[in-house]
């Protein structure tokens, strides 16, 4: 291993670094920072939409030289049928043991229901959010070896935000991809055309209300065919044999 090893050390130590970075960002951006989160050696910062470009400029000045990615997120809950295997006994939550035979079907059902958001309700992630659409980007400093995930809320009816292509030319393709997949408009982008999809394609595929036709036709493979536990499988087999 070479001598330059700045990030060596436990994850706990990096939390102080992220705290310092957050304070630095807040000082530079002022009240543009409207939400933040630090978890497990990583930092999330949500900024005001109007300050999106200024955030990039400030980050650039703070030695964030590496453009990692830019993308979008649609917080609308899934609209396609999302069947759950609540019939299968022995499903336990992530803290439980893997001994499936102990759990009753009711417990299994509860395990699935606990932290799933209620249907139709928008639940946003770290840093919070007030709108359905968010744009998110990640920057990294190859000098300080620290990264930050930046988010900004978008107007749901007219999702528009400033382009980053002037600061980070690598944002060019990412913004084109986000434009075709989510329908976000990037103000000032020099060439905002579709990247992957054919020009005549209609709709925005990564929006949650865009149906995945393959799943509509045949719900396989996917969330529906989660394997049954051996005991439940044998029961199902026996029931099938009896029926036959």
């Amino acid at each position, binding site marked *: *291993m*070479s001598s*330059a090893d*700045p*990030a*060596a*050390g*436990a*994850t706990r130590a990096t939390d102080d670094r992220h705290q310092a970075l957050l304070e630095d960002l807040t000082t530079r951006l002022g009240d543009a920072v409207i939400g933040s989160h630090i*978890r*497990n050696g*990583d930092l*999330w910062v949500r900024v005001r939409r109007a300050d999106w470009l200024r955030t990039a400029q400030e980050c650039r000045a703070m030695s964030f*030289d*590496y*453009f*990692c*990615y830019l*993308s979008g*997120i649609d917080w609308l809950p*899934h609209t*396609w049928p*999302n069947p759950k295997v609540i019939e*299968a006994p022995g499903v*336990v*939550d*992530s803290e*439980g*043991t*893997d001994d*499936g035979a102990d759990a009753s079907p009711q417990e299994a059902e509860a*395990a*699935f229901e606990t*932290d*799933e958001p209620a249907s139709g309700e928008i639940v946003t*992630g*770290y840093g919070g959010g007030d709108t359905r659409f968010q744009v*998110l980007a*990640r920057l990294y400093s190859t000098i300080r*070896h620290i*990264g930050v*995930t930046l988010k900004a809320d978008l107007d749901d009816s007219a999702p528009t935000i400033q382009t980053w292509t002037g*600061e*980070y*030319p*690598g944002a060019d*393709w990412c913004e084109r991809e986000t434009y075709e997949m989510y329908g976000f408009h990037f103000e000032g982008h020099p060439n905002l055309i579709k*990247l*992957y*999809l*054919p020009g005549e394609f209609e709709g925005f*595929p*990564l929006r949650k209300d865009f149906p*995945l036709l393959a*799943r509509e036709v045949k719900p396989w*493979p*996917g*969330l529906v065919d*989660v394997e049954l*536990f051996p005991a439940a499988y044998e029961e199902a087999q026996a029931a099938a044999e009896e029926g036959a």
Partner: protein
Amino acid sequence: MAVADQQRISYIASQAADIRLNVELQTEEMTLNLGPQHPATHGTLRIIARLDGEQVVKADVVCGYMHRGYEKLTEVRTYPQITTLINRIDWLSSFANEVPFILAAEDLMEVEAPPRAQWIRTLFFELSRIANITLFIGEMGVQLGAITPVFFAFRDREYVLNLIESATGGRFHPNFDRIGGIKDDLPKGWIAETKDAMRRIRGYCDELEDLLMGNEIFEARTRGVGVIPADVGLSYGLSGANIRASGVDWDLRRDAPSPLAWKELDWKVWTHPDGDSFARYWVRLQETREATHMVDQILDGLPSGPIQAKVPRIIKVPAGEAWAHTENPLGEMGYYIVSQGGLGPFRVKIRSASFHNVSITPWLLKGVYVPDIITILSSLYFILGDIDR
């Protein structure tokens, strides 16, 4: 008249002559369409180049011929099903694709794989690096008209693929990584075979160094061609060997906190100051050799113990967001997982290396000559599945 004035006048005169020459040779621009099917594209990438004579004025890259919509498909699959899917992103180093995804999911579940599993993960990670880059090292020669290296590449890569197959069951798509550990332990007799294969790969690297590095044609075609300055490369999101060839001493295996075993091995991050096609080739060749030494060290230091942590049979990831990235053969690969506590993720953003490595080509190809398009694209080394996802 002072000497300085004379020099200035002769300089202006030579400039004027150049301008006249250019005016005389003013040609009509033409469009050259490269691809989608083209020997130098490893798949289906199309480049529309506006040419002035032999020089590229403007190059547009058209991708998406292989777009499979993985980010959408992940939303209807469970976590164990997704590893099968993301195997196909960079198909030459499939195992390396699985690792960051599993790490992100483990981060959210707060599960950590036992040390032996981490070491075996590192082992297969480096083996897939070797399997991936050996092909590049040979294939770069074929783009320049040297046929021999590519045959050597396919011959020697097979040793590594056989090793991966004998341990995981999958020659190309192992699907071997699991949340909380790995699928199986190593088979009997495998370690000795692997050491032998690593010796062969080192021999292959030496052979290629003899065949290409000293070759006059190879040097003339690659030295000083397609130069990427470090700051431009970074702002385009270039990573991996492409940015290390521009003199940036940055390797996530060393610089990012990772549960994998890289920190416990003795190895070196190779960089090259030039930033041209030759530097990118040279850095990858050194990295392959370094990876064989890393595999040897892993085999010597492999800890004993379990290979799987205790996780529930049906994987349910708690709500949260996690980002995990690793230094894949092609560059930085990362997954941003948003979970809302279900059997599958709510959203997965796949940050693949080739997408960003290729996004610099419109800038890079400006002003180069037509034959250099091929060497530059080849030296950037991308996999189409890694661009289109």
